[in-house]
């Protein structure tokens, strides 16, 4: 039976005890009485063993990359190497204070500096900030830079163009920067429709936000033409780095003509997702935008590393201190072990694995855009829906085979979308098993759709009532 930790509380028991203060103390002497707490804190009272059992047993109710295949599209759930965890847990990285003197943090600053340099090479742009904490945070940072750049130039540009296949964070981020969003439809090939783009492109447009490969897993082949169009109109081109895992060492946003890029270290550079975070979303920009970056950036002078706050047009800070440093350590370690050949091979294998799955599944599930894909592809469960089971039903059934479902119902432009991203760290055996399972589910749907609809059967809970959760919100234990 599910018990909340508060229900397990046994008053009077405790876990960790701290030593005595060693000095007398009377708070009433210093603090106004009407501010002092009277009642006991409302927290559970448990032994350490109680706590361990509670959380370890909870963990067993999760799927994770270390336990199952996790082909969640757009999330790049690749294996997270343990050497990266080891590195991040070193005392000299864990127990350093952001306000300590730069001279006592040279190792940390060197790591940040070198990571900035690596990201410059990988993105093909000129300057990097490691400050943003996540992909969406990077988008916000990047679009603020765009806003500030045009303001400094004295141009009033109020609109941002975003394709209808984009991640939801793109319009949300641009909106937080005060931009109006202009959505453009994709063409029949699943790509940015150049004619549609031309129609909306005017002097009010500040930028186009794109993902390349896009969320359908398709490479935007006309990227150079798009880049030229945008730049001829005086606008900038923003690259959402969510799908960078497809192109490392093959091409880069700089070569494609992008001006601002964010990189998801927790996707491409293999830092663990932690059940939803922490991530890191460094931003790279072209030279003319370099002094708009958040401060500080790591810099080097006479073999000494320091934090440079002296950026003339900086947008300020988007987070306290310097970024999710622990995540940066992991990504740095990953780049170090993979090296240039390893990163390129990672992208090649990611693309190979995706194409392999796509070709092996397209006879069983609709493939709306039947073309060469990059690191991921999108199937449609339209056919299966007519037979009685939709994409969500298939997703739930996969759980019974110990496979995490793909991303479903995204991108929005595909009916009954199932977005599949195997990543490069999965073996042929794992992929073949996934193919077998997906084919089997298709057969089940034809023979016994009710069985599939009842799934999942093997998980710790059966299908969860999300409607009830929203109608009668119960958001805390009382």
């Amino acid at each position: 039976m599910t018990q909340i930790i508060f229900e397990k509380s046994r008053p009077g028991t405790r876990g960790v005890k701290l030593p005595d203060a060693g000095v007398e103390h009377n708070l009433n002497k210093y603090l106004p009485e009407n501010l002092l707490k009277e009642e006991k804190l409302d927290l559970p009272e448990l032994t350490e063993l109680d706590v361990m059992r509670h959380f370890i047993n909870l963990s067993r109710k999760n799927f994770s990359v270390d336990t199952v295949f996790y082909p969640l599209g757009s999330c790049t759930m690749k294996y997270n190497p343990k050497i990266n965890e080891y590195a991040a847990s070193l005392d000299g990285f864990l127990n350093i204070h952001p306000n300590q003197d730069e001279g006592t943090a040279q190792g940390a600053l060197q790591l940040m500096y070198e990571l900035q340099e690596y990201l410059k090479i990988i993105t093909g742009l000129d300057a990097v900030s490691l400050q943003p904490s996540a992909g969406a945070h990077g988008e916000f940072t990047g679009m603020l830079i765009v806003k500030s750049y045009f303001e400094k130039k004295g141009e009033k540009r109020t609109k941002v163009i975003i394709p209808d296949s984009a991640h939801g964070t793109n319009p949300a981020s641009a909106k937080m920067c005060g931009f109006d969003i202009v959505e453009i439809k994709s063409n029949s090939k699943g790509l940015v429709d150049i004619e549609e783009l031309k129609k909306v492109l005017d002097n009010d447009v500040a930028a186009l936000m794109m993902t390349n490969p896009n969320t359908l897993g398709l490479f935007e082949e006309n990227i150079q033409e798009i880049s030229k169009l945008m730049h001829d109109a005086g606008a900038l081109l923003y690259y959402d780095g969510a799908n960078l895992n497809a192109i490392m060492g093959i091409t880069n946003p700089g070569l494609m003509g992008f001006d601002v890029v964010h990189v998801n270290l927790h996707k491409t550079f293999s830092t663990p997702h932690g059940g939803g975070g922490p991530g890191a979303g460094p931003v790279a920009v072209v030279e003319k935008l370099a002094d708009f970056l958040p401060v500080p950036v790591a810099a080097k002078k006479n073999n000494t590393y320091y934090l440079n706050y002296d950026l003339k047009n900086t947008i300020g800070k988007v987070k306290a201190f310097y970024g999710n440093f622990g995540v940066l350590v992991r990504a740095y370690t990953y780049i170090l072990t993979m090296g240039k050949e390893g990163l390129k091979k990672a992208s090649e294998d990611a693309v190979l694995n995706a194409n392999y799955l796509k070709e092996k599944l397209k006879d069983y599930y609709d493939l709306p855009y039947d073309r060469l894909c990059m690191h991921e592809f999108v199937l449609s469960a339209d056919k299966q829906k007519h037979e009685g089971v939709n994409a969500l039903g298939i997703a739930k059934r996969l759980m019974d085979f110990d496979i995490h479902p793909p991303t479903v119902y995204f991108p929005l432009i595909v009916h009954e979308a199932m977005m599949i991203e195997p990543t490069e760290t999965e073996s042929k055996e794992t992929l073949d098993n996934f193919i077998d399972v997906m084919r089997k589910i298709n057969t089940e749907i034809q023979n016994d759709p009710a069985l599939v609809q009842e799934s999942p059967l093997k998980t710790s809970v059966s299908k969860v009532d999300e409607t009830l959760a929203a109608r009668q919100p119960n958001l805390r234990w009382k």
Partner: protein
Amino acid sequence: MYNYLPHTDQIREEMLKEIGFKSVEDLFSNINRNIRFDNSNFDLPEGVSELEAKEKLSELASNNLSLSDCLSFLGGGTYYRYVPACIGTIIERSEFLTSYTPYQPEVSQGTLQVIYEYQSMICNLTGMDAANASVYDGATACAEAVLMAARITKRSKALIASSINPEYKEVIKTYCYGEGIDIDYISLKNGKSDIENIKQDEYACILIQNPNYLGSVEDVFEISEVCKSSKAKFIVCTDLISSAILKRPASYGADIVVGDIQSLGLPIAFGGPHGGFIACRTEYLRQIPGRIAGMTKDLDGKTAFTLTLQTREQHIRRAKATSNICSNQALMALAATVYLSVMGPEGLKEAATISSARAHYLAEKINKIPGFKVLFNDFLYEFVVKVDDEFSAKDLLNQLKEQNILAGIPLDDKFDEYKNCILVCVTEMNHISGIDKFAAALEKITSKCCLRS
């Protein structure tokens, strides 16, 4: 064979052949040649073995002075506190560490129940009705709360206390620039917000930190009154360790309570990853940013958890979302939940009172040393030391650093009002012997009068 890549060349060839390709190159035929990398300019280093990586990283780490190898009195919103051993074991558990955002509740009940319990604990400690699953840090929590208040009140001006963490101030400013919100500041008097000087205006919110960056408690009841009379939302940023000593922000009228969870069992890690919490009264729930977990039932009537109220979020509402946040700091929220569980009410109280007792002990000692003055006494575990103008605070800090003492944060470039001042912090990690050593070192330096700059 490269690290973490399972395919042999033979397997690659087999797979390519099965799907009708001749070479890997064919998979990239849709990328125009002239934007392809020429191998020569993909100029990253060659990969190294795990053993070599370990050596390199150990070397870098050893070039930093760890707080565990010195006497540190650094605080300023980021605290060196005791991290119970079991937290590491739990957050390194693969099922927590290597899972994604719990979009699929049936295979994420672990993460979801943790978030629910985390939300419950945040509510209990703040007195609020609801909390989200976390934002990036205390600074972004403040910024998001200001935006939230602006949406609730449909006002576009915010009043911020000058006594809040200067890093937070910067981040709020950046977010407000994005949304076009103007900011006014409450001036300082005696280390806290000058309540005589609070302007009454059409503010969306008044945001204070309590205890504030300088360690002192604010006149919260008076500020709360101003909020009420001007219909501004009262946002309180707080360190939850202080909730073991001080009344909960709800009891003095807070509408939204925010802060950083780093002090709850998270390592400092050079400033991140930490985590921000946002809690609010029920009536503002629909305006809260980020993930929220809720308790519900499964089809068999069993208790289950799921992400809920998702129509506020970017993946559903896109440009109309309450925030763009997607990834948050879930693992850090887990660490905080474990911390609060294993410390319990008594442990948290101990952390707060030991810190406070020893901080006041140090303050009294410093106050007795000629050349130093503790400016304000109404603090919990952080306080401002004014160094006599005869000496330079920065030189003093440097000299103490030579003796392996990180004495505090210089306030010179943070507060015009507190030139030649140092912010000193004491936690349960500072033993009495270390505190005595710090005081003795101060005395020795000044008695030699060698600080003149």
